[in-house]
């Protein structure tokens, strides 16, 4: 199995979730994060003092899928999250040893 970690723009979350559900993804973990990247660095003024905004709000998706599905999932996220504007995000894939569904005790692919 693979763990797919994606950092995307918050307002794309719902769209991406729907696309993935269509694909048969049945679960994911979503976390609000502060993203640092090329998008960062514009300046704002607060009470007369200028400062650089280094972190922009992003949403991180963590999805574990069967190996077979991984590529498709990555592509779907990429396609859906794309706005062609800087800050669209990144997608990383890692190997997963094992998975377990707490409720049923099912393991690995059955657990997803």
């Amino acid at each position: 199995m693979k763990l797919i970690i994606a950092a995307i723009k918050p307002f794309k979350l719902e769209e991406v979730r729907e696309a993935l559900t269509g694909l048969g993804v049945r679960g994911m973990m979503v976390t609000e994060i502060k993203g640092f990247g090329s998008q960062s660095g514009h300046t704002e003024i607060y009470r007369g003092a200028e400062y650089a905004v280094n972190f922009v709000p992003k949403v991180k998706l963590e999805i574990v899928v069967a190996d077979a599905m991984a590529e498709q999932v990555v592509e779907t996220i990429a396609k859906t999250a794309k706005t062609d504007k800087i800050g669209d995000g990144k997608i990383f894939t890692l190997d997963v040893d094992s998975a377990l569904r707490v409720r049923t005790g099912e393991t690995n692919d059955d657990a997803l």
Partner: protein
Amino acid sequence: MKLMKTLPLTATAALLPTLAVAQDAGVDASSDSIFIFNSLLFLIGGFLVFWMAAGFAMLEAGLVRSKNVTMQLTKNISLFSLAAVAYYLIGYNLMYPLGNWSIGADETGGYLGAFGPALLEAVGVGRDAADDYGYASTGSDFFFQLMFCATTASIVSGTLAERIKLWPFLIFVIILTAFIYPIQASWKWGGGFLDSQFGFLDFAGSTVVHSVGGWAALAGAIILGARKGKYVDGKVVPMMGSNLALATLGTFILWLGWFGFNGGSQLAMGTVGDVADVSRIFANTNTAAAGGAIAALILTQVMYGKVDLTMVLNGALAGLVSITAEPLTPSLGAATLIGAVGGVIVVFGVPFLDKLKIDDVVGAIPVHLFAGIWGTLAVLLTNGDATFMGQLLPIIIVGVFVFVVSLVIWVILNGVMGIRVDEEAEVNGLDTSELGMEAYPEFSKG
């Protein structure tokens, strides 16, 4: 007409002080005391209505999403400040020409009031130099009336939240508070044609204040369009308020302020009859709000199987708006029911607007316009002096005037500078995109 309302009584006291003692084993308040009581009523009523500006700010800050809270707060404090100055420079005398109509006359009906900034009485003014010794100090009246004008503007900001640019909105506020509100208000409270020719009755302004705010908001909402993602393929996508504690606080603040809004509109407190009336008004205003809240409480439980707090809050406010046109003559029971109907109107009015794809972020149109119309008609139920046409026609006349003029102004503003932020700004939230400042910068949001 407001200014004249109390003259007879107080005049007596002023001119025939010696007779006072005679009347049935009681003594009138002295003419000075009457002047002071009336002025005091305006000052207390005025600061209570001022407090409503904070109520709107909290209610709206609580009902918008956190990414738009700073903007909503900025709009609220700015609109009040601009309204204060606009009303002083132009609005007050447009609304209270005291007979000096630019168009029309007291007898034949006044249509456009006088121009020129508000002028207060001299420092330490004496009895003889007072503008209206039989009534109250001009400063207290100005202070009180100013707050009503600002209220009208506060109503608009809630409906148009989360997508309108700051400056076009503020420009509209200036026009609304300098011209639109005062002109139509003069028709009734300035002794204009709605008062003299139609015998229109609107005690504290279900129509003159609340509907007017509602009409202006409606016009804006139509030109502005709904928030991105609010209506997708026929379905309504809820956008939850970010802080219901603030929304509830705002509602309580408005409820408190309303005692000044309606009670102060008795315009006099210097006689047994007047203070007893103010007391009736306080009691009726409170019970109408309760009626509205209870109606929404029960109705949402029955209709949705769960109580909807935001509807209960709107219900209480709708109850207040409903009783505003006539808070004096109803019995406690009637007042409760009039308010309850207001609560019902809101529960049905909010989804109704959504059906029309008119996006009213805080429910200001159901609360202030729909319930305002109901309240104005409800005067017929308890006040024998009210006539059906005398209520209906002014509702229509004021509605058409405010809606059309507002619509034109919104269209012009939209053409000239664009009233709506671009899509990305809206999606990211007006706080970061327009102001570069978050209301809750430390709290992570979803």
